[in-house]
């Protein structure tokens, strides 16, 4: 159920989307860029050692904490130099999608679901800079595995976030991890907790680690929670003084 405010925001936001915007091209670019980076790196890895392969879980964990940090401290906080990211997320994404109506309608709405593709380039440049350092002190294999894992995590992030905002959940509600993040992220769209809880967008590992998950479970339970609501904390805050009244009923003729 959508409030009048959310409906008004959606209408206004959609009116601002440029005519030449195309959601499919947007998504294709994200996965072409990520796919090309991943493919190139994998092609050039030769006989990696077990130690070099250990870079994969390290990147997965590092990316998980990075995603948590960026979401909590940049996307949800007005900070000098990063206002564009905050506006796109807190002031737009979270007004377009609420916990009551978290689903997009058309591929035009991908404008507000996915990050702009240049964010992926920025992320890959950061990963490549780190990889360059790794190649100097360790090995080219480790460096390539680092960038490949980073590209994989980025696409993982975009795909999972789409899974949170797509209406049809007939298949994804049965997929482990995907069903977990879907409930986890839709709960995050509740204004009362959006500034402080459920900051992971892939696997709620960092939320578990730093105690910012809305569920109170062990690590495995948190990661594989699915749609389960039995473990949701009872002490979560509620919003007050709301002006976001539900849509008034159509007056009887």
């Amino acid at each position: 159920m959508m409030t009048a405010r959310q409906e008004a925001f959606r209408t206004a936001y959609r009116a601002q989307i440029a005519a030449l915007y195309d959601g499919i091209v947007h998504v294709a670019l994200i996965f072409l860029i990520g796919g090309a980076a991943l493919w190139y790196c994998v092609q050039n890895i030769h006989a990696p050692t077990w130690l070099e392969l250990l870079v994969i879980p390290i990147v997965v964990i590092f990316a998980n904490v990075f995603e948590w940090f960026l979401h909590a401290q940049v996307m949800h906080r007005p900070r000098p130099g990063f206002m564009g990211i905050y506006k796109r997320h807190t002031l737009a994404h979270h007004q377009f999608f609420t916990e009551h109506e978290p689903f997009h309608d058309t591929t035009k709405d991908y404008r507000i679901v996915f990050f702009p593709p240049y964010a992926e380039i920025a992320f890959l440049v950061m990963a490549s800079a780190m990889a360059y350092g790794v190649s100097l002190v360790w090995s080219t294999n480790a460096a390539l595995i680092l960038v490949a894992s980073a590209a994989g995590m980025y696409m993982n992030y975009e795909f999972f976030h789409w899974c949170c905002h797509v209406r049809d959940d007939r298949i994804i509600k049965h997929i482990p991890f995907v069903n977990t993040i879907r409930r986890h992220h839709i709960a995050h769209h509740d204004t009362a907790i959006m500034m402080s809880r459920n900051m992971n967008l892939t696997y709620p590992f960092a939320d578990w680690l730093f105690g910012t998950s809305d569920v109170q479970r062990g690590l495995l339970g948190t990661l594989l929670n699915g749609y389960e609501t039995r473990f949701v904390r009872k002490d979560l805050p509620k919003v007050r003084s709301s002006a976001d009244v539900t849509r008034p009923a159509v007056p009887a003729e």
Partner: protein
Amino acid sequence: MPITVRDLKPGIKPPPRQRNIASLVGGFVIAFGCFVLWLLVASQIVGGRPSAAIIAAGAAFAIAVGVWIRLADL
């Protein structure tokens, strides 16, 4: 770009659409990124330095993507 419910009272016209500075910078960033990736992938496929035609095609593709990012105001 005031988008609040108060601003949406009937009779008030929505402000004209303004392109975001992010899509301008982003257009250059993505053109650069796409060109580098194109060169890497092409050199991998041909097993060496790609031909001038392939490089030119890559530049055209990268510019097209950059321009689209700006026009689509992403």
